[in-house]
């Protein structure tokens, strides 16, 4: 029975359970729903959930476990010298699966009868040709061991599927019967449904957390491989970045980290004052009409794709900085520079800082403003001495969020600051960042067992650690100072 039919059958059972449960509840109260502990729908929902949820859970677990079990059983059939020949067990197993699927497909299309499919022998039939005629391409001729394994695979698969269908449907029916038998006017169906809702919410948040854990784990595993091939000390303290796929690379983190921090610093130097001041203007001074126009205009900046900012950096800001500042002042002749990327990234971050700060400033209670005005303070005195201190934790949080965004930015850096990994103080020199190098190491033909490719994961993990640290710092600051005003 195909999977979709099993699911539909379970849902149909559940729906029937809903109707039955609801009816039984109403009749147990003699038709007067005021006597029921819960509304009739809750009784229906309870039966539906008890029928559907355990059955579908078992289905999911079964689908996850069955392939692993079958794989283990089939693997035993394959002799060791076959494995030696083709080099990898996984290659043979994929052949086995293809043959098994091919036989099934041949059966479906009528190219083979059930009996023929069961009795087929590699000695008498050219299985490769037979399967090719129905559109299943095999890389190699099929030998007896693989065929035997494939046949075993087929039988196990069929039994497994039958058992699964039976188990799931029986479980759904049992759940329905159990919940139906418990349905009575005193049964607290509302509370049961409440618990089901709670577990859905918990499940959702668990998925989010597990995804993060999964991402970190995969990064950690790859990074461990990298550190087997390349000494950690040289990675963290190396001052040279010269990757070469022929070997003998220098993969030092410091030039990349320096570029990242330098560009982020300049970006914040642009974004924080501009963003904060515009937020103060919008929140405290601007009239309603001005605010209605200016706020969406600023937020449009947030909607511009970073590649467009990159073009702006490449074509406008870079050459301008070179012609009017770098060359006349003797700082160099490069149009891609830390300054270019930093300024353009700063512009990109303005809406982050201004929009978040604006919300935070608006959240400062009006009573504090009244108190300050009532003492004869001017508007700017009030902003400087009352509102900003009260809003400070939130503003710091906004700035740190903007910083993590800047650290993770790639496109603007590629187009604005170039790809040369240099350690320099000159802001008009081309530099590059961690993210750019991650992209650089993983694009094109890469050999995932070389340190030159694996270094990308170490870089990614380092970046993740830095931004995570910043976010934790932001959370800490916000939490520590949050209760300053009610």
């Amino acid at each position, binding site marked *: 029975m195909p999977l979709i039919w099993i699911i539909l059958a379970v849902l149909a059972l559940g729906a029937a359970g809903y109707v039955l449960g609801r009816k039984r509840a109403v009749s147990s109260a003699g038709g007067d729903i005021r006597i029921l502990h819960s509304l009739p729908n809750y009784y229906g929902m309870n039966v539906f959930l008890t029928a559907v949820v355990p059955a579908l859970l078992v289905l999911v677990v079964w689908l996850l476990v069955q392939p692993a079990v079958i794989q283990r059983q089939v693997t035993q059939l394959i002799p060791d010298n076959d494995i030696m020949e083709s080099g990898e067990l996984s290659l043979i197993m994929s052949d086995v699966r293809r043959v098994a699927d091919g036989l099934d497909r041949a059966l479906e299309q009528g190219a083979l009868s059930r009996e023929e499919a069961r009795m087929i022998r590699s000695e008498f039939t050219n299985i490769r040709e037979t399967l090719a005629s129905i559109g299943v391409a095999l890389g190699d001729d099929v030998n007896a061991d693989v065929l035997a394994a494939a046949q075993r695979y087929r039988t196990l698969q069929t039994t497994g599927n039958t058992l699964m269908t039976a188990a799931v449907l029986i479980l759904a029916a049992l759940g329905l019967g159990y919940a139906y038998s418990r349905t009575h006017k005193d049964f607290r169906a509302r509370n049961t449904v409440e618990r089901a809702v709670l577990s859905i919410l918990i499940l959702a948040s668990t998925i989010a957390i597990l995804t993060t854990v999964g991402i970190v784990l995969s990064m950690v595993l790859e990074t461990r491989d990298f550190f087997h091939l390349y000494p950690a000390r040289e990675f963290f303290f190396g001052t040279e970045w010269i990757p070469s796929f022929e070997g003998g690379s220098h993969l030092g983190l410091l030039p990349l980290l320096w570029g990242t921090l330098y560009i982020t610093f300049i970006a914040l130097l642009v974004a924080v004052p501009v963003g904060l001041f515009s937020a103060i203007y919008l929140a405290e001074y601007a*009239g*309603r009409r001005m605010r209605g126009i200016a706020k969406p205009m600023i937020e449009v900046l947030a909607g511009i794709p970073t590649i467009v900012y990159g073009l702006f950096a490449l074509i406008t800001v870079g050459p301008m900085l070179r012609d009017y500042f770098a060359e006349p002042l003797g700082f160099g002749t490069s149009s891609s520079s830390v300054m270019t990327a930093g300024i353009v990234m700063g512009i990109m971050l303005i809406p982050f800082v201004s929009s978040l700060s604006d919300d935070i400033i608006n959240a400062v*209670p009006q*009573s*504090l*403003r*009244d*108190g*300050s*005005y*009532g*003492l*004869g*303070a*001017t508007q700017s*005195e009030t902003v400087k*001495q*009352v509102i900003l*201190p*009260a809003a400070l934790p939130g503003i710091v949080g906004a700035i740190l969020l903007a910083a993590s965004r800047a650290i993770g930015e790639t496109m603007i850096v590629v187009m604005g600051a170039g790809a040369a990994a240099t350690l320099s103080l000159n802001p008009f020199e081309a530099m590059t960042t961690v993210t750019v190098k991650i992209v650089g190491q993983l694009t094109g033909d890469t050999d995932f067992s070389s340190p030159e490719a694996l270094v990308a994961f170490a870089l990614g993990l380092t970046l993740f650690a830095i931004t995570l640290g910043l976010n934790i710092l932001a959370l800490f600051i916000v939490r520590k100072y949050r*209760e*300053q*005003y*009610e």
Partner: protein
Amino acid sequence: MDDMNDMRLVERAVDDKELKIAADGVDVFYGDTHAIKAVDVNILDKTVTAFIGPSGCGKSTFLRCLNRMNDTIDVCRVTGNILLDGEDIYHPKVDPVQLRAKVGMVFQKPNPFPKSIYDNVSYGPRIHGLARNKSELDEIVEKSLRRAALWDEVKDRLTAPGTGLSGGQQQRLCIARAVATSPEVLLMDEPCSALDPIATAQVEELIDELRERFSVVIVTHSMQQAARVSQKTAFFHLGELVEFGDTSQIFTNPKDPRTESYITGRIG
């Protein structure tokens, strides 16, 4: 008989006081709403004047006209004359910021800044440059806290945040903060409505002491409070000033039937 004589003495004392604020034909509009209609009130120096009346009658709005706090509301428009010491406070030459230093305000809900107790009190004096050095500032802070009857409770923790005090202490801190700029008039907008009875009693006692130096105007919902702390009472109803006179007269012998109805609890 003795009581009657005392009463007359108090009244005569009030009559001797000089005029502080004279409001003449004041109208206030919120957009299209006519919130205050042709109100005339004379507020005397070193006197507590109470504004009473049912909710929404405009007494708080009128109070906020006296230090131009309504300027911060866009749609609010004030017409008529309000003279402070004979000068029109709505004259274009008058800077509302300077005016608010002279006419301090205490709000309904205690609103200490999220700063230390010391910084809360020294906020006004610092802004207006009232102290030449740190020791003068210390002196102003101590004096103001003493006037607000809070000094003994907080003198050992002046650096603690003002928001950490209890509700009554917070309100007295706000009074100290207002007193610290040495205003001439102190406006209080239902200063006890968020306080428990004990804190209320403390603040009322304080208001009575403040009368020695300032002219105090208090908006209150509690008629008992008005009777306890004020010498003059103004009764507002639906944006009109119904009756204004000595507190003893308003509460014992109101001239207008609406005042009588409100005081005896028939409207409110």
